[in-house]
Each structure stands twice: as structure tokens, then as C-alpha cells.
């Protein structure tokens, strides 16, 4: 098991290192294809390799034509398999944090909540890998108010670190009758205003926490981005009259997410490569937006 893990990790890193070369190859093939289609002469730098590349182009099918990145590797089986999530907290959680985590376990379908106790992060990750979990979500707090969310995709996947702001939990709404019970159908997802590459990446990380829904569910989970602050909302809708009337009823917790780091490794790998990290001390950081345009 250990050796297998090591081998697979090395394979993943090797594939990542090959990406550059693969991209080059892809570019060359693309140029040749274009030249052939338009009837233009093939660019001179590709003359030597033209024959071999042409043969490869002919043999390609739709899977091999697109260059695969490590991102694809990370989420290769995500669409085929339903995600399995482990939710846990930092050590010694307060009661409000425990309640929040309980709510979150209802928000994510197929999520399992676990008491943290005194476990070490690396142990948690190892056991999750062994039990075929796809994601681990850690929630941190400050004096009862949840303030941090760490989403770690499991087989060597990326880890996204979010800060939580303006958290409103279901427990704060005292009237239990009004809020009702939480539905457990697989929800539809809405990702609004994630236009840059980094935005797409973040959207993917959050998207693959959810399974494939049925087309007619009434439950909606929304991640709406406004100047790098992502609002999380959870609704149920009803269509009373005709198609135009839609009534939304908000259920579930509501919070703002603020991404501050993405690492290309799991949580326990402290020395993993940083894909992106927030830099608030730059003078222009007030003007720049990273998740949208």
C-alpha cells in the first residue's frame, strides 16, 4: 500500500513534468492540421517532423487529441464516480463550530462528519486514501465563528484554502418550524462570474464536491463571485403558477468564501508547490481581481 502510493505519486509528478513537452507536441500538431486544412504550406520549422506528426494526427481520436494536464488527471475519475467527502474540524472545536459542521454535512451529499479528537492531519489523509474518499474538508474557527475552510482533493489532489466571512448558520435561526428540515436530494449547481483561469479552477474544485444530480431536483446550491468574494447560497425552489413564477426559499447556511491559496498537493504536504497565493501587500492588489475579469 505504501509503495503503491509512492509509485502513484511519482507517476503523477512525472506526468506533470511531461506536460510541457506534450503541450509543445500539441502545438505542432495543431499547426500542421491548420496548414493542411487551409491548404497553406507547412511551416518550415516543422518540415523534419512533419511525416511522423501527420501519422500521429491520423491515428488520433478525440481523447488523445486534447493535451491532458495534471488538472485532468486530478479530476479524471471525478465525473465517473460519486464524490465521498470527510468533514472535520480543527482541534477542540467549540459548540457553534460543531453545529456548523453538522449543517455542512447536510449540504454536501454523501458527506461524512468525523470528530477530530487528537488526530494528526497526515493520519487522517492516509486513512481517507485507504477508504477511497475523494475529498477532505476541514473547518477552522475563531472564538466560535467559523473562519476557515480547507478543501483537499484526495489522491494527491489540489488543496484550496478559503477564509469564511459573514457566516450565518441555520442554528442561529431560532424558529425550527420555519426553516424545516433539510432536503437530501442531489442539488443543481450554479457558478456565477468565474471567468478567469483561476476562477475556472476554483469552480472546478468546488464543483467536484457534488455528485451528478437528477435533472428535476428542486434544490439549488449557488456560488456567486463578486470581486473575489464568493457567496454561498442554498435554496429550494417551487413553481406554482406557470413557468414564469418561481419561488425561492433559502435553506442552509450562508457565508462568503475568500480564496487565499491553492496548493498542488494534499494538506499534509507542507512543501507542496503553490499554484496560487494571495498577495494583499502589493500596492495594486486593491485594483486587481483574480477570480473574475
Amino acid at each position, binding site marked *: 500500500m505504501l509503495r503503491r502510493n509512492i509509485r502513484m505519486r511519482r507517476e503523477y509528478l512525472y506526468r506533470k513534468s511531461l506536460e510541457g513537452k506534450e503541450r509543445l507536441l500539441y502545438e505542432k500538431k495543431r499547426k500542421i492540421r491548420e496548414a493542411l486544412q487551409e491548404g497553406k504550406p507547412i511551416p518550415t520549422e516543422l518540415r523534419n517532423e512533419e511525416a511522423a506528426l501527420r501519422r500521429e494526427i491520423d491515428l488520433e481520436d478525440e*481523447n488523445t487529441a486534447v493535451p491532458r494536464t495534471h488538472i485532468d488527471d486530478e479530476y479524471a475519475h*471525478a*465525473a*465517473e464516480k460519486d464524490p465521498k467527502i470527510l468533514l472535520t474540524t480543527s482541534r477542540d472545536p467549540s459548540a457553534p463550530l460543531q453545529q456548523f459542521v453538522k449543517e455542512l454535512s447536510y449540504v454536501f451529499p454523501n458527506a461524512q462528519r468525523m470528530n477530530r479528537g487528537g488526530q494528526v492531519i497526515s493520519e487522517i489523509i492516509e486513512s481517507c486514501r485507504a477508504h477511497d474518499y475523494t475529498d477532505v474538508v476541514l473547518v477552522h474557527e475563531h472564538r466560535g465563528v467559523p473562519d476557515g475552510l480547507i478543501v483537499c482533493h484526495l489522491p494527491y489532489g489540489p488543496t484550496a484554502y478559503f477564509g469564511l*466571512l*459573514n457566516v450565518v448558520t441555520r442554528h442561529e435561526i431560532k424558529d425550527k418550524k420555519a426553516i424545516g428540515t433539510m432536503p437530501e436530494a442531489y442539488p*443543481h*449547481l*450554479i*457558478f*456565477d462570474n468565474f471567468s478567469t483561469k483561476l476562477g475556472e479552477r476554483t*469552480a472546478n474544485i468546488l*464543483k*467536484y464536491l*457534488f*455528485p*451528478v*444530480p437528477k435533472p428535476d431536483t428542486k434544490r*439549488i446550491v*449557488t456560488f*456567486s463571485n*463578486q*470581486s*473575489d*468574494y464568493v*457567496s454561498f*447560497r442554498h*435554496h429550494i*425552489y417551487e413553481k406554482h403558477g406557470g*413557468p*414564469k413564477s*418561481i419561488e*425561492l426559499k433559502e435553506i442552509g447556511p*450562508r457565508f*462568503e468564501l*475568500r480564496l487565499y491559496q491553492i496548493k498542488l498537493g494534499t494538506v499534509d504536504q507542507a512543501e507542496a508547490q503553490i499554484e496560487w497565493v494571495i498577495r*494583499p*501587500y*502589493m*500596492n*495594486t*492588489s*486593491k485594483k486587481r481581481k483574480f477570480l473574475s475579469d
Partner: protein
Amino acid sequence: MADSKDAGEEALRRLIATFQPSFLAPNPALSETSRAASRHLFSALRPFCPKSPLDQLLIDGFDAEQIWQQIDLQSQPLLSSLRRQVKHFAKNPEEISKLKVVPLGKKVEKEQREDWVEESDGFDEELEDDEEGEGKGGEEGMDIEDEDEEQGRESDNEEESEGEDEEEKGEDGEAGDGGIEDKFLKIDELAKYLEKEEENFEKAEEDTRGKKGADDEENTEDDDDDDEEEEEEEEESDEVSVLLGSIVSDFVLLCLHRMLSLDLAAKMQQGTWKMQGMDLFYGVFLTLEHCGWDEQFILLLRYEDFFGDKGKYSKKMKAQLHQESEGSDEEDDDMKFKKQNKGTASTHQKQLEKIHSKIEEMEKANLEPKTWTMQGEVTAAKRPKNSALEVDLDFEHNVRPAPVITEEVTASIEDMIKKRITEGNFNDVQKAPKLPSKVPREVKELDDNKSKKGLAEIYEQEYVEKEDPTSAPLSFRDEQKQQASVLFKKLGLKLDALAHFSFAPKPVIEDMSVQINVPALAMEEIAPVAVSDAAMLAPEEVFEGKGDIKEETELTKEERKRRRANKKRRFKAAAVKRMGKKVQEGALPNQMNG
């Protein structure tokens, strides 16, 4: 010896007589003179240092540094012994009186003194000269350091010689008069002055405010000569050095004053001339010469009096300085400033000290590693624990503040959601299309409905198909398709007839159909053609009747009557019906007519 002695004295005298600034320019004759003078002095001092390895100062072929080292070799042990003795006398003043006074002649003493003075003089001059000789690489001014060194050497010599002098004079003073006193020195005056000074000093120590400003004033107004006297005639007491220092400080001030009064003042203001140690020396020289001092006595001034740091004098000195330069008002302030009794160091001295100490501090700080706040990126491991709490960390937070969730924001989000729902535009996870690994199995759908055709019909159809495949009824499921194909066949036939030259119509295929009511035996009969249906039909099919069927002949009378009655009844009912219809029809035309 005498000759050499004379030569040496001569050299000394010549040195003293030379114009001081001429020392600045390299002059081989002057250096020769100074060397001779120093040799003379050295040999004069030789009897007082028994342990000295050198009997004579070796000059020929030696450079200034080496000559100086030889002098140093002699003077260092001398100095230490003198210091010891001075201390001893300082502790036990009564022993001074016990000192054996050597009843030398005045002249001899004087000569001796002169010798010593000359020696020291020579040392000074020579050293100066040597310094000049060394530094003649085109440098006009000498470094302060060199001068200081020089002064140091001079002071050493002066101290030593002065110490000896003091001792000597102390002895003499007790014994008699004429040996010491001259036109400058009056012992009575000296005694008075000393007492005064002692009182003053005590007062100064007690009272930091210093009321003896007035006293000082008086003192400074005294004749310079007195001061000079004090300097030479001193008791070996605790305050000896103090007094010396004070007196010398007075001098210094005077000299400064005088110097400044010269054209040097102008230069100083212009900034072209900075006061250096050498200049001070010259200034002193000039001043004292102006006062009428003998050159020998001038040289008794010690270096330390100019540049040494004696903690007790500064007050007095400062006071005097201010008196001379300005009024006595500031004196008190200065006294207040000086809480400690510092030595009578000049302001320049003190400034220098301050600067030096600052420089040292800064150099030390530069050599040490910087504090963690100045070290750029510092992690928590690299700085002391909780140190970030104590430091005021100030940096700009260049971030957009968190959005406040208002009603409008929520409404806008919900609007967007509603729009997406109506469009059905969701960002769900899409199931990836799996690559076909197996051939999809054919699923045979079994129709549960009861078949409309009976089993016999199905067998019939199969038989027909077998016999004549072409005549099989078109087994189209779709009726429309069936109709369409029939139509098309007809059309095709007609088109063929039109299109072909040699058209041969298709042979009519007899349509085989299954007839149900066929007799079991279909024999050819020679029977008449006209066959009624009755032959085909079974008797029940011909007539169906129920009950007991009787003929007319078999009927009884009642039964005949009953039959007739039934017949009539039926006939009548039908007739009535007919009539009803006729009436209706008749009514209509009647109505129409009417």
C-alpha cells in the same frame, strides 16, 4: 663630556630660539640640532634611571621612530616611579618636609632645572621635528593624531621632568628661599593662593551651585605670573593635581584668548583654519612668551592638562571660560549643568569625546547583527517569542473590504438564480461518456399484450408465406405503410406500362385466401348447377327454431287457433305501425299545405 654637554645645550638653545612655524617645513639642519639636543637631554636624565639599558641616545643612522623608542625606553620606568612617589606624597603630605633637601647651589639647581627643561624642551622640539621630518611627504598640516602622539610624548617627558622638578622644588622650597624664587615666583603669594584654591575647591565639591564664581574671578584677575608660580610650586597633596589642572586650565583659556586675538581668529571664522593640537601648543607658547615666561617653564605644561580628562576640573574651567569670554551670569548655569566633577577638559575636548563615543557606539552597532525588525522577511521561528506583540507593525492592507450583505445584494443573487432556473442553465457535473468496451446486448422486448390474432390465424399466415412467398400479406406493422406500399405498387405498374416498349403485364397472382365456410368434401358433382345455399349450410343454419316444431297437419285445433291468433296479432301491430308512419308523413304534407 663638557663639550658635548655644551654642544647639546647649544643645540637646545638654538631649537628654542627658532621661529616655531619653521618646524613645519622639513629642514635637515634643524633635525640635526634637535637630535643633538635630545641626546643631551637623554644623557642628563640617565643618572635618574638606573635600570635603563642605554647609556646614550643612539642617533646616527637611526630614524625618528627608533630614537623615540629609545627615549620611551628610558622614560617609562621613570614615569612610573615618579607617579608612585607622587602618590605616596599625596597620601602622606608630612613626609614632604622630611625630604632631604640637597643644598645645591642656586645656579646648579637652576642649571639642572634648565637642563631638565631643556631636555624636555629638546624632546618636544625634536619630536616635533622628527614628526615633521617623517611627514615631509608634501603634507603641510600635520594630523591631529600625530600631534596628539607628540603631545603625549611631550607630556610624558614633561610629566617626568616636572615630577622631578616638583620633587626637587618641594625639597628646595622647604629648605630655603633663593633656590627657587625668582622674579616670577614668590612663595608667600604661592601659599596664599594655594590656600584659597583649597577652600574654593572644597566649596565647589559641596555646593554644586558654585558660589566661588566670584573667587574664581578674583583668581583669574590675578597676575598670570601667580598662576605660573602655582604651577611650579605645588604641595604634594590631594589637591595638587587638582590645582595644577585648574591653573593650567586657566592658562589654556588665556592662550585660547590670545590665539583668537591673533589673525588666526579670522581664519577660524572663515573655516580655513581648524584648531589643532599643534596650534594650541603654539598658541600657548606665544601666550606665555608674551607674558614673559621663560621657554623652559612653558614646557613644564603637561599634555594631560591640555587634553587629559580629569573629572574634577571641568566646573572650574567652565566657570573661568565663561567669565573671561562673557559675563559671570552663565557661570551658575554651567555649574548647574555639570553635576559631575569632570576634569578641566576644554569644550573642544568634550566635543571630541562625545563624538568619539558616538562613533564607537555606531561602529559597534554596525558590527552586530541587526534586530529582527530590520531583517526583511522574518518567520516566527527567527524572532524571539511574542516579539511581534511588542513592535508596532504598520503596513497597508491593500485589500478590498469584505462585502456587506444587504437586501439588495441578496435580491440580486436571487434574481440571478431565478433566471438560471428558468433557463435551466446549471453548472452541474457532467457524466463523462464512457468508452464502449462491450457490444450493447440486444434487448428483446416482450410484448405483454394479448395477441389479436388467434393461433390458427397465425398458422395460416405462416403456411401461406411458405407456399407462396410473394402472396404473403404485407407484414407491415404500420397500416399507413401498408397502404402506401399498395398504392405505390399500382402506380409502379402503370408507370411501367407507360415506360416500357414491350410491356408485358404481370401475371395476376391468384390471391389465395382462406375461406371459412367450405364444406369438408368438395367433390365434383354432376348435380344441377343451381345449388342453393342450403347445400352449404347446415340444417341449423338454415332454420333455427326452438321448442317443439310441428307441422300444420299435426297441430291440434287449439294449437291451430293459437297460431292464427298470434299471426293476426302480429299483422295488426305491423299495420298500426304502418298507419302511424303514414299519418306522420301525411301530417307533414298536410302541414306544409296548410
